[in-house]
């Protein structure tokens, strides 16, 4: 195998690939890496975007501007950006990537002999030597286990499985490195399917092929793939090692797909999940940058901030958005204060209380001592404010020494003190309904801590309450029954890239994880856009869950918005005190 410059074992880098057909989004922001000689499965229902993805990669159709597909060309020994090449420039690269189709009947020209079908790619790519071509065709027939006397016969003389072998021979005669199999075994009988799967596996070993295997048959994908992308409505909802994804699916859609597979064991009864598990939160407002800090305010209704483009806004029931006050970027946390003002916090923002006429500084940020601001804040039943400082981190890119944050409490008289230390990043703070415990989500350690509160009102040492298997926690809200509703950012690094390279992240659709008071998982509510950042309860009787989401922080990105979710919390009584502690 080649070890040329730039070759790091990967053959394909797909970044932010999208495709829109007449306004219909068929593919949205797909990123992944593919290692050489790997087999990547792409699964999903019809219309999920699997075939569109395969075709965009091979440039059978042109993807939207903005995304990129980079391919490690063996010929040039370097990365080429397939997505922007002119069609003329693509021609020589076509030798290195080929496709095998689903239907062995319609994909072979009935008027051509097997020899003509298999040698056609050689002619297209300028192989003039007839004997050389025949030699190569004969080689391919051996490779796909068809007899040499097939050469002069026509496709109609072959069975479905044999025709699929002809299609494979045609794809492999140019000695490609990347082969896309689009439902290649779907139309075949099970025993023939087994032969073709075995053949594909053998060819991969001998020829070091890399496969992208598009299929709706999950059992087949599990058998031959190492990694899998699960697609729904043009979005990758889950990805990873095929056994991990199939054994421990994280997303509702993956659970639905897997639960629908009829087991060949009559003693394992099929229990298909209800499609209603896919019902996700509905948009209230969209088109913002990075939306944070939702809070239900008695006077304004729902308030949210835009960290990326600045400002604090109120949304009324008619979904009308009114700016409440201008502010430069950065406000991340908000809490409705007992004095009627609004307390705000954020990166590069000091902790301030905004009243009607004045603003009061509660805690200054202190960059010299490694504190660039405050993230989430909350108040307890007495009206004391708890705020987690951000510390500093290389991720902030502010040149400061890395330092963990602390948890501050600000008493009613304005005095402040540190009550807990060594916090990697405070995302989400909230009290249990009885006020006897404080929960705190640490998004870098991907844990939620619980602090019990003693009789004097002081925090006891923290204990780990919940650990996240996938993604990390962000803001949280606590319901009256003591359950935690935690924004769960599903963001994954694409293999092999720098951890600080934003373009190498794949954001999966966000979700809210509901955790029971005993620390077990209850359910997950999904939102249709990436990066779920925070939640709060609001609306009449505080029975609506508001979810806010953000873009990935790149300027110009306006995928942030506010979503609402009602169905499963009807019947669950929420006391205002649990969500918004107030005096008296």
């Amino acid at each position, binding site marked *: 195998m080649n070890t040329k410059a730039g070759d790091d074992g990967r053959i394909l880098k797909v970044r932010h690939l999208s495709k829109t057909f007449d306004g219909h989004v068929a593919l949205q922001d797909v990123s992944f890496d593919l290692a050489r000689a790997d087999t990547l499965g792409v699964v999903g*229902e*019809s219309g999920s975007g699997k075939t569109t993805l395969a075709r965009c990669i091979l440039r059978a159709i042109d993807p939207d501007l903005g995304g990129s597909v980079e391919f490690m060309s063996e010929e040039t020994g370097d990365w080429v950006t397939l997505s922007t090449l002119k069609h003329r420039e693509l021609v020589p690269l076509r030798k290195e990537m080929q496709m095998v189709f689903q239907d062995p009947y319609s994909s072979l020209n009935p008027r051509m002999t097997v020899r003509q079908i298999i040698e056609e790619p050689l002619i297209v790519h300028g192989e003039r030597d007839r004997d050389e071509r025949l030699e190569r065709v004969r080689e391919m027939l051996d490779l796909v286990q068809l007899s040499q006397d097939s050469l002069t016969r026509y496709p109609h003389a072959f069975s*479905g499985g044999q025709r699929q072998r002809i299609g494979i021979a045609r794809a492999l005669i140019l000695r490609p490195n990347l082969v896309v199999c689009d439902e290649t075994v779907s139309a075949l*009988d*099970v*025993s*023939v*399917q*087994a*032969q073709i*799967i*075995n053949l594909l*596996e053998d060819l991969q070993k001998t020829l070091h092929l890399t496969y992208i295997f598009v299929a*709706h*048959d*999950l*059992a*087949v994908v*599990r*058998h*031959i793939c190492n990694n899998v992308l699960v697609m729904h409505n043009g979005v990758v909802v889950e990805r990873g090692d095929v*056994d991990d994804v199939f054994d421990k699916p994280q997303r509702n859609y993956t659970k*639905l*797909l897997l*639960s*629908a*597979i*009829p*087991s*060949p*064991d*009559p*003693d*394992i*009864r*099929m229990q*298909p999940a209800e*499609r209603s598990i896919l019902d996700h939160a509905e948009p209230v407002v969209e088109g913002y940058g990075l939306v944070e800090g939702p809070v239900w305010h008695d006077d304004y209704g729902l308030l949210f901030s835009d960290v990326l483009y600045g400002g604090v806004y109120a949304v009324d029931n008619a979904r009308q958005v009114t700016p409440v006050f201008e502010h430069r970027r950065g406000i991340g946390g908000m809490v409705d204060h007992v004095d009627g003002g609004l307390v705000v916090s954020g990166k590069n923002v000091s902790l301030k209380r905004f009243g009607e006429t004045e603003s009061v500084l509660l805690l200054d940020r202190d960059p010299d001592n490694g504190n660039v601001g405050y993230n989430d804040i909350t108040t307890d039943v007495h009206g004391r404010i708890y705020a987690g400082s951000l510390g500093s981190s290389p991720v902030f890119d502010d040149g400061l020494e890395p330092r963990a944050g602390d948890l501050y409490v600000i008493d009613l008289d304005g005095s402040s003190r540190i009550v807990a230390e060594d916090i990697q990043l405070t995302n989400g703070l909230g009290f249990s309904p009885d006020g006897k415990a404080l929960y705190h989500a640490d998004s870098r350690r991907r844990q939620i801590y619980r602090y019990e509160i003693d009789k004097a009102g002081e925090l006891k040492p923290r204990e780990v309450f919940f650990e996240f298997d996938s993604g990390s926690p962000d803001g949280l809200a606590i319901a009256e029954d003591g359950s935690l509703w935690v924004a769960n950012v599903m963001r994954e690094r694409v293999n092999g890239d720098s951890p600080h390279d934003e373009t190498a992240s794949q954001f999966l659709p966000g979700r809210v994880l509901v955790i029971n008071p005993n620390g077990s998982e209850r359910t997950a509510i999904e939102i249709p856009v990436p990066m779920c950042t925070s939640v709060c309860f609001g609306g009449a009787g505080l029975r609506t869950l508001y979810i806010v989401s953000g873009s990935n922080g790149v300027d110009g990105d306006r995928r942030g918005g506010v979503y609402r979710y009602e169905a499963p919390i009807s019947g669950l009584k929420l006391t205002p005190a649990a969500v918004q502690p107030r005096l008296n």
Partner: protein
Amino acid sequence: MTDNILEIRNLGVRFRTDTGITNALNDVNFDVPRGKVTAIVGESGSGKSVTANCIMRLLQPPGEIVSGSIMFEPSEREAFDVVQVADRDPRIYELHGGLISMVFQEPMTALSPVYRVGNQVAEAILCHRQVSKEAALAEAHDMLQRVGIPDVDTRINMYPFEFSGGMRQRVVIAMALVCHPEVLICDEPTTALDVTIQAEILTLIKDLQAELHNSIIFITHDIGIVAQIADYVVVMYQGRVLEIGTVRQVLKDPLHPYTKGLLAAIPGIVPKNQRLATIATSVGDADITTPYPLKDVGDGRMVSQP
């Protein structure tokens, strides 16, 4: 009334074509127990669909039944041999959609694109019973509701192209069941559907069967579906029956080498790193082509063996 609603004996079918005679079915024997689901499983060319077409008397030239009988005993009726019923006998008319009805693989070919779905379901009633069009439409409405079509009041006046694949198949099932047939033949009804929609349709067929107690012949190549839906299994290969038994007997303890091979070729059953068996490798030296007759091997099981 016997326990079996259908008893198929020595059924032989051949296709006379320009290139010669093909024996599509050879000495096919099996029973369809009343009120149960019998799956016929096999690969393409095994004769599953030809068998179904014989039961429905839908076999078209150049296909012809050359031997055997299909005894059909509807409840409260005299048993008769479907093979012997003359083409112009009114019982043929009763068979089609009245006593026996069928759900096909591709719902769009079973539905007319130019009629509203309500009318298509009602037509099935009007063909078999003397009722007014209004009464038939009301019954169609109920049936569409029963097969899980949402918002039937609106949907009943829509055309098939306005339905998704899964919803179309629900309409076809409504059409098939609206005359309360005693036998429902499902010929690969979920093959063209996504796995999630397949699960919904299988659940629907199972639920309706539990409610209506009709006898179902379910034709499929998918062992997973057989495991989930069938009470009895008939394994077919090249126009012959190789093995008959309950679903547990056949899938958990297959006796015929071909059945064993079929099960070993399924990716879901075979461990990930193990090579899939092909019929040729797993059958090995065992003879699966000689047409041995079915032998009773006890426990109600039948196997084709010397």
